[in-house]
């Protein structure tokens, strides 16, 4: 429980950090309500709606209410999917308000011990340091390969963890070896006539646990006619920090990235993780009060492009693409859709593959409940949201659920495992799917990445 002093501190922080003009832009029209997964899943509780959350923020700033546990819970339970931004005719930037509110609450550091530990491990000690990410992922690899995983699963030691984490442990991909993660390509030539020079934002999770997907991404870019540089000095995008109230750390990482990519002199900076992309695209906002960085951040942000978007621009979908006969469906990455406004491109690409029948699932744009570390810290709501999602996915009779973000991908895999559907359904990242389709259609045997 929070004591009075703590509440006063939070209230003061709300006054300092919340953009009041942005709050005033909310007309309380309620158009956001049906778009909000937590509003729907709580049986239409206004407290857990975007309009309600904005009213709560305003209430705290105005001093109408104190920042109670219930207020905090409302802010905590938000997925940050930003579907409300897409629905909002007034253009309220809810994601920013949410970050400001979380910043205000968490700078005061009043979290439960396990959450504090988890956040400390993830935000301060892990994501900022790619070598530590590699180290940890390496350990995971040892765990998976040494037989320890089998042992752990057999002995039931995993039952000590929350359900979402337990299942997550099962569905994590086989991670690459430490040596492979350390020896990453830095410059790649196009494999067709050169059309663009791009830089690849490799991401911390993507370049370790999902290294294979990163390789597929650069391969697709090569086939599509891109020269690619992968700046070595790049850092984690900082999204997980920013979304969870650790803004100062996010800013530090933004600066490192801006510097790293300025040297590359490219047309675009490509991402393959919707969550990272949406945060990178807002670096200009993140650093708006820093005169030295504002303009550089702006230039950086304008170059950000999702892999699906650049592929459509380079007409990759008009190349031969083919897979065995199957139904496929697509789960939007909230931040790709609501943050980067990339909605049609993944669908265009999937619909261009021969033999593949694209079936849109109902509410494909509704968050899957992954939402950063939400599925760990808000496990119950996350699983409730996932149940709905899987129900819709199953109705399409799809063999493959395609996603465009690592968090969504793991969540979909988790959903498939939970529903006991592993033998009929699979979840893949769109680039892996596209690469397979391209190589099959062009009779290419899957090969090692082509280094410069």
């Amino acid at each position, binding site marked *: 429980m929070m004591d009075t002093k703590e509440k006063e501190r939070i209230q003061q922080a709300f006054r300092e950090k919340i953009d009041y003009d942005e709050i005033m832009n909310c*007309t309380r029209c309620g158009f956001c309500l049906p778009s909000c997964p937590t509003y729907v899943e709580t049986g239409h509780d206004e407290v857990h709606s975007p309009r309600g959350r904005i009213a709560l923020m305003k209430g705290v700033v105005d001093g109408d209410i104190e920042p109670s546990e219930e207020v905090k819970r409302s802010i905590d339970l938000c997925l940050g999917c930003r579907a409300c931004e897409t629905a909002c005719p007034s253009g309220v930037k809810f994601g920013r308000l949410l970050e400001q509110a979380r910043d205000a609450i968490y700078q005061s550091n009043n979290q439960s011990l396990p959450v504090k530990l988890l956040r400390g491990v993830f935000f301060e000690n892990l994501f900022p340091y790619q070598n530590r990410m590699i180290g940890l992922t390496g350990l995971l690899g040892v765990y998976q390969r040494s037989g320890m995983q089998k042992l752990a699963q057999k002995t039931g030691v995993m039952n000590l963890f929350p359900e979402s984490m337990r299942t997550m442990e099962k569905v994590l991909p086989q991670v690459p070896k430490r040596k492979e993660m350390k020896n990453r390509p830095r410059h790649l030539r196009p494999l067709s006539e050169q059309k663009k020079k791009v830089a690849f934002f490799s991401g911390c999770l993507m370049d370790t646990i999902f290294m294979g997907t990163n390789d597929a991404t650069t391969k697709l870019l090569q086939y599509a006619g891109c020269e690619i540089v992968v700046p070595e000095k790049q850092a984690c995008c900082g999204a997980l920090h920013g979304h969870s109230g650790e803004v100062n750390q996010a800013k530090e990482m933004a600066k490192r990235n801006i510097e790293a990519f300025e040297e590359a002199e490219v047309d675009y900076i490509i991402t393959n993780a919707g969550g990272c992309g949406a945060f990178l695209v807002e670096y200009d906002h993140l650093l708006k009060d820093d005169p030295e960085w504002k303009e550089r951040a702006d230039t950086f942000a304008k170059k950000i492009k999702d892999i699906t978007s650049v592929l459509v621009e380079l007409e990759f979908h008009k190349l031969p693409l083919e897979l065995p006969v199957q139904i496929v469906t697509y789960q939007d990455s909230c931040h790709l859709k609501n943050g980067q406004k990339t909605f049609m491109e993944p669908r265009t690409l999937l619909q261009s593959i021969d033999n593949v029948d694209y079936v849109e699932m109902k509410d494909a744009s509704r968050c899957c409940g992954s939402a950063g570390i939400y599925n760990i810290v808000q496990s119950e709501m996350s699983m409730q949201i996932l149940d709905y999602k899987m129900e819709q996915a199953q109705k399409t009779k799809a063999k493959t659920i395609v996603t465009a973000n690592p968090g969504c991908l793991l969540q979909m895999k988790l959903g498939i495992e939970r529903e006991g559907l592993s033998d009929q359904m699979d979840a893949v990242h769109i680039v892996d799917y596209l690469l397979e389709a391209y190589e099959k259609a062009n009779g290419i045997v899957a090969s090692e990445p082509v280094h410069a």
Partner: protein
Amino acid sequence: MLKQEVKDRFISIVGEENFVDNNASLLAYSYDSATQYQAIPDGVVAPRNNHEVAEIVRVCNEHKVPIVPRGSGTNLCAGTTPVEGGIVLIFKHMNQILEIDEENLTMTVQPGVYTKDVNEAAKSVGLFYPPDPGSQHISQIGGNISENSGGLRGLKYGVTRDYVIGLEIVLPNGEIIRTGGKLAKDVAGYDLTRLYVGAEGTLGMITEATLKLIPQPETKKTMLALYHDLEAAAETVSAIIANRIIPVTLEFLDQSTVKVVEDYAKVGLPTEAKAILLIEQDGAPEVVERDIEKITALCRENKAFDVSVAQTAEEAEQLTSARRTALSALSRLKPTTILEDATVPRSEIANMVKAINEIAAKYDLNICTFGHAGDGNLHPTCLTDARNKEEIELVEQAFEEIFAKAVQLGGTITGEHGVGMMKLPYLHMKVGEAGVEAMRNIKMALDPNYIMNPGKVFARERVVVNK
């Protein structure tokens, strides 16, 4: 604050999980879409059926606790702001479509059903529920009935009132009554159904409604006409009606509205036009074809510089949904958006638009106008900042003049938003002091303890307004 005894009784009626009074929940039910108003209730109660509603009402009547029934809180008149405290009653458990009767062409619903779901359920069996208020995808039918909501199709099909033929009502004394029925004709006594439609929750609680459905029109066509000046557009509206054509939709948007709507919806609205008419006609294909042709000719005769008909259903849908966003999109320009709905006989549209522009100029205010020109229901919308007290003062003066002008032209102070708290000071302008007194007498007879949504429509005591 609710007495512990009262709270305990609520909990024993609805169960612990359906009564909340923590500060976050109270704040979240303290407002509606009339942003200038806010008042914290003492509790939020979610009954599961009509009997629970009746029991709650009895407790409230006994202890004189105000009750504010609330749908999704999208009304624009501060109709669900709990200004005198008490409890907010929500209908999240009473949200079922109970029956679609395809022989009698009726649908029976609970109050918590979304308007859009009513529309879609009707459509799925080839029937049609025409009322479509701007917030239909989130508004609840109970709220629509209590506010007698309008929408874009009012001109041809009327408003919510015209489609409610039966109600189940919990009276302020806790009695449950049923009015009307699946009947086209019913003159048994006073028409209580009509009394309760648009009563803004001040006379009792609606717990079930029987809605009238009509056959789904075969086809629909949507068109746009662009003008270099406002009056020409308004004159076209009068000309269309004078030529014995009743389009389903005849919407008017001025240039500033068009600009923001286009900025939000990006459907290719021509932002260079000073005024736009969005016109729709539905019905049998040959009738639609003929009407659209005639309307096109009338638009041109009245100096439209461009007239175009939507080529596909998607294109048409884009245009109408863009229009629906007008209000919220306008709010992008300034922090505070004050929207009114002064309404005049449609023959006076041109005069009214002209008067609004003159009044805006006189007070140096930014007033954009859009609305349902076909039924004379305009939405002059003032873009301002609630923090600028001086300007807000001017806004109030300007709107008072706009209302006076509307009434002078034979119109009303509110066409579809309701009185609530926002229009309460102006009600006498439309209905007269004796009219207000008659309403007050009805209220006194049915709700002597003033528990039902107090502080709305008119003041509790008779106040003589001297200005």
